[in-house]
């Protein structure tokens, strides 16, 4: 599969279809990979593919430094491909400006990432070209897809509050969670706006609560559950529980799964007269 990937990348660069390939390269330890940006056909051997390819490379579509490299081909797993769908729907990218190089995937991470345990996108749902043996995407029932919330949802309100207080106390406000998130693409984040100061920049209980809750809410109905925020958190806050809970509520209430079907209308920015909330009428 690595050879197929390299061959495809080389073709794309040689034919000038793209200027750069966003892919995975060898990392600083055998248990890591790292994002690589291949601009010359002779460098395609730097590309690799293995179970440590956890990154959602679509985040580099929002960064000016990597955007400047020119039209990219971007290697995406099924989960990452959902981001492409959201970015298209939210008018952040144009379809013709990105070459989506899908890879089939049967799980990443060691131990296996939580998102992979109930994966129904082993084969990406959007791509220009696919590398790897096509895997028939399973249908996974609602409850099973949100199984990681089972324990959490059993907690009482007070227990949930105590749980998050303890978790957020660890937050150091490094903003790795939002920096890595491909869907946190505001030019100026709300934490950087200080007239008025919406969110206390201090890493004290109030500042940490308002930051972490706001971050999660801004992704409600948008998060595609790549789990990158949780992976990169240097103080190990289980951020995905928040994202997953909001995704579950969105699906329950609006029958919407973010990034799943390109024809679905966005849950949070589509007006419908039959909306069942009174304040909408």
């Amino acid at each position: 599969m690595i050879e197929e990937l390299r061959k495809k990348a080389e073709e794309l660069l040689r034919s000038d279809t793209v200027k750069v390939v966003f892919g995975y390269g060898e990392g600083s330890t055998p248990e890591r990979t790292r994002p690589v940006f291949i601009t010359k056909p002779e460098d395609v051997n730097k590309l690799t593919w293995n179970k440590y390819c956890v990154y959602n490379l679509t985040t580099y579509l929002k960064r000016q430094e990597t955007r400047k490299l020119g039209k990219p081909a971007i290697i995406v797993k099924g989960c990452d491909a959902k981001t492409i769908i959201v970015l298209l729907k939210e008018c952040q990218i144009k379809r013709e400006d990105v070459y989506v190089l899908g890879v089939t995937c049967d799980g990443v991470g060691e131990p296996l990432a939580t998102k992979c345990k109930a994966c129904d996108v082993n084969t990406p749902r959007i791509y220009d070209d696919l590398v790897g043996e096509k895997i028939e995407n399973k249908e996974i029932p609602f409850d099973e897809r949100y199984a990681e919330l089972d324990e959490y949802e059993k907690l009482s309100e007070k227990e949930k509050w105590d749980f998050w207080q303890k978790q957020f106390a660890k937050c150091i406000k490094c903003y790795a969670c939002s920096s890595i998130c491909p869907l946190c693409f505001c030019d100026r984040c709300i934490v950087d706006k200080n007239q008025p100061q919406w969110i206390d920049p201090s890493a004290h209980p109030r500042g940490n609560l308002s930051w972490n809750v706001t971050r999660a809410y801004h992704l409600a109905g948008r998060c595609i559950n790549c789990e990158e925020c949780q992976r990169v958190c240097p103080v190990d806050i289980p951020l995905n529980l928040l994202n997953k809970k909001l995704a579950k509520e969105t699906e329950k209430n609006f029958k919407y799964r973010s990034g799943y079907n390109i024809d679905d209308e966005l849950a949070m920015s589509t007006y419908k007269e039959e909306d069942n909330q009174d304040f909408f009428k």
Partner: protein
Amino acid sequence: MEKLLNKNSFDSLITGLKKQGYKTIAPKKDNKLVTLEEIQDANEISLDHVITNNSIKEFFFPKTEKILSYTIEKNKVEMEEPEGFAVKSVIFGSRPCDAFSLPVMDKVFNWDCSDKFWVERREAITIVTVACDKCDSYCFCTSVGLAPDAKQGSDVLLTKISNDEYLVETVTEKGENLVKELESVFSDPPSGTPDRQVATVEKKFEIDKVKPWLDDNFQHNVWDEFSYKCIGCGACTFVCPTCHCFDIVDECTMTKGDRVKNWDGCQFTMFTMHTSGHNPRSTQGMRWRQRIMHKFKYYVEKFDSTLCVGCGRCSRVCPADMNISEMLEIIATEENQPVSKE
């Protein structure tokens, strides 16, 4: 002074410290992390890790701290300075790299003015370091002039000499006083040469080669090329024991407020953003260059000291696997040195 400390005595050590009025901070395991934090009981201490996830920095320079409170009335402003922030404590089980970060940072916190928050805490806190008996591939203390059993910055150094025993060496007068205060906890040192269990940390580069290259290569394509993968978060700077930039904000209403000092970091876009909208460090390559230049050139020129202790935390936590020692290795190995296209 040399003594011996048996693991069985950890209990009486912690009880003894409490009796003497010390707060104890030690490495504690919680799920995936081992963090230096306040402990009440010797059972909480964990010493089988390579390095704690948090650095020693936060006990001297917290992530957030009130430096002033004020109230504004019609004709006057009243200000109140915080008190009681320096609590008599012992940090037990920090690593030599972390301990060394303290004298390195003393230089900047006592430079043009003396930062009382730092200075008073430095006086109140005693550092009992445990030499590293293991390391990982991110460690590079030996490349920046340190060692896994270096003493600089510690008041007392403990070195493992058997599964249950540590050789205790006092380094400063403060350390000696601490050991004297808790005399009954320690026993006499073994006769002969004890078998010190100290990790072998591979030397990755010659530090002397780094600065000359930096002197000549402020303009270089390598800064951009190395940092395409950087996502511009502050994880590296916040886990770093020697990164010390901060921001000051007022958290206030119309009539009263707190002036707060918070960690800040040079990898954020907003760090150098001017009010006009101009940003002199407009790309991540420039911001990455700043991190390297500050640690291995500017600080060396100003304070005659490298602003890096080789703990490797920045590389361990980096979301995109940016690796600082890899960059330094490239710089310090002449035949690998990147050729500038500028």
